[in-house]
């Protein structure tokens, strides 16, 4: 089964359960935290997912290392390489 179909199946199941839960609560005038949680479940799920993805992105950027000295090291290495190539008649770029 394709990944998108699996995800769609899972979402449909979640939606069906949620609608069932909401319909069950329709009759009662009970406004307990439990009924509120059921009513707001999709919104809470989306919010939680958003927070998780954002936290993962921030962690990913924080651990995405920078190596500024590598630029300098590479420039030096290339300068040396260019000199050696020129000495041996291998520099054709100029």
């Amino acid at each position: 089964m394709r990944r998108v179909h699996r995800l769609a199946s899972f979402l449909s199941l979640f939606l069906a359960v949620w609608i069932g839960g909401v319909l069950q609560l329709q009759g009662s005038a009970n406004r307990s935290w439990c009924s509120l949680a059921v009513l707001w479940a999709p919104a809470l799920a989306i919010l939680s997912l958003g927070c998780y993805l954002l936290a993962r992105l921030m962690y990913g950027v924080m651990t995405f290392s920078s190596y500024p000295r590598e630029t300098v090291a590479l420039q030096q290495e290339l300068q040396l390489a260019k000199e050696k190539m020129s000495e041996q008649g291998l520099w054709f770029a100029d």
Partner: protein
Amino acid sequence: MMQPAAQDHQVHLTIIIPTYNERENIGLVLWLLHEHLNPYYSELRREAGKPQHSAPCQPSLFWEVVIVDDGSPDGTAEVVRGLQQSKHEIGRNIKLIQRPTKLGLGTAYLAGLEQANGQWIVLMDADLSHHPRYIPKFLQRQAVTGCTVVCGTRYRKGGGVAGWGFSRKLTSRGANQLASTLLGASISDLTGAFRLFRRDHLLQLLDRTTCKGYAFQMEVAVRAQYAGFHVEEVPIIFVDRLYGDSKLGPSEFLGFLRGLLRLFLTL
């Protein structure tokens, strides 16, 4: 124990480098490849107990470079031909394919593969953002794990970038995380282009890819995973000397998102 690199006359590794306007860089890339690969293959031959300098077994004959130039107006092809025709060892293992114009990365790799003799293929860029010193590390990882694909990654410990600001890092990391979440990918660096492949697996992947631009690299990595290939990652430091924050424009980013959506709906 590391396997010997190759039979005496067999090319073990082909490095395919697509080029467009890399006149200044291509000679330096070839020089650095010699500096880093020849000692590696010499060492392998020493470990395998073979004599060092018996002709035709110079270390540079275990690997070759195929340059695919898309009609560079700056004379990149002339620089390559100059090196090919020199008497220096550097020209001994270079092949040049000249195409009339930019025809896409996928077809460039396929054209390179047609001329490649190596059992193993490295794909890399010509602008020196990919340093040849990592290629022996790719080969070592492959020899130790028996995998068929090694991806250079900027995001694992030991990897990273030089020359990028916060916004560029955010876009890069964000795009990769979005892609890996949507596609269920375990490879950390989906848009990286510095990779080692076993030849037959690369051919299978290239035959199946349809995306262009950044999405192309992502598609290759994801298809490798979905095909059940054993993929390993090696940290690399990507040095962006020339473009900094400016290479990724809105059209490239939109193209990436289009490719990602298409892959999400079809894979």
